[in-house]
């Protein structure tokens, strides 16, 4: 089961490029065009990444996450959550680049192949920046009464987080 993941990226790229060639797309030109957009969007998020990574490493060094983690750990233990992942779970729905910085921190301090590292990565991959999406989509068309949106979206996030712990436990231990 572990190896399936290793094939995903090469196969996906292979199929996409092959398809492009068959359809007579000028593959390299189009690739360059997309790559340029990639540089631009990295450039656009660079200032916030620098700010947030510094802020997160300061918070971490100050012991704030340990305090927070200690406070919630009884509940977390009960549910089988690794304590190190809690800051990510709290930040994920609020800030995309913020949670990216936290994920990076969890991965480097616990190891990418540790239980906590894997759970954090799966959690990051299976949920979205819920509040950002809600704000952008409703904001764009001027909707103010959003009824049950937040409740449903947060339930989905929580379900994703629980499944992240369960699946990592199932596949990797």
């Amino acid at each position: 089961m572990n190896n399936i993941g290793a094939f995903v990226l090469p196969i996906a790229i292979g199929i996409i490029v092959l398809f492009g060639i068959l359809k007579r797309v000028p593959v390299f030109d189009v690739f360059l065009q997309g790559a340029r957009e990639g540089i631009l969007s990295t450039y656009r998020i660079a200032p916030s990444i620098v700010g947030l990574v510094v802020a997160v490493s300061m918070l971490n060094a100050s012991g704030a996450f340990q305090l927070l983690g200690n406070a919630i750990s009884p509940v977390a233990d009960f549910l089988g959550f690794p304590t190190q992942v809690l800051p990510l779970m709290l930040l994920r729905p609020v800030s995309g680049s913020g949670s990216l910085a936290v994920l990076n921190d969890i991965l480097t301090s616990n190891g990418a192949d540790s239980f906590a590292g894997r759970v954090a990565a799966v959690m990051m991959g299976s949920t979205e920046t819920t509040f950002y999406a809600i704000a952008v989509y409703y904001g764009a068309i001027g909707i103010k009464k959003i009824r049950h949106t937040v409740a449903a979206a947060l339930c989905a996030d929580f379900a994703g987080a629980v499944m992240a712990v369960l699946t990592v436990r199932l596949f990797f231990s």
Partner: protein
Amino acid sequence: MVVSVVISFFMGTTGAVSDAIISGGKASIDLLITMLSMMCLWNGIMKIAEFGGITSILSRIFAPVLNKLFPNYKHDIETSSAICSNVTANLLGLGNAATPLGIEAMKRMQKANPQKDTANNSMIMFVVLNTASIQLVPTTIAILRDKAGAVSPMDIVPCVWISSLFALLVGITITRLLEKGG
């Protein structure tokens, strides 16, 4: 940042915080450089997918499912195709492309919405789909894991699929239940 400084005084970790400011700055640039290369590569590949027509094939596959979720727009081809392209872009991890497409879909739905300041059921379903979307290839996460020394950075992909599919199903179910309640 202020919080960290205050806490560090109480916890006696001010020295560590000061180190973190310097090392954090360096870490952020490391992170950006790794991200830059992969963002370039992946955006380029996805452009090929778009031009080669893979994106539109995928949206044709999802049409029947989406028609079930958005019954009001089944016959409104413009709206349902906007919804389709947004879902496909999310699936392929094209975050930058997904948002403008999603806003387009929301605008189309708003046109037929009788109460302009209140979200209708389809809009809520659409936003929930977007907050719990499945990503086939979680590139950014794999980059970070690779940088942190993972043996096989993509080995978490099956877990990501299962977890996000589950989150999505829970989201859809709860949205449907709450629709009926209020």
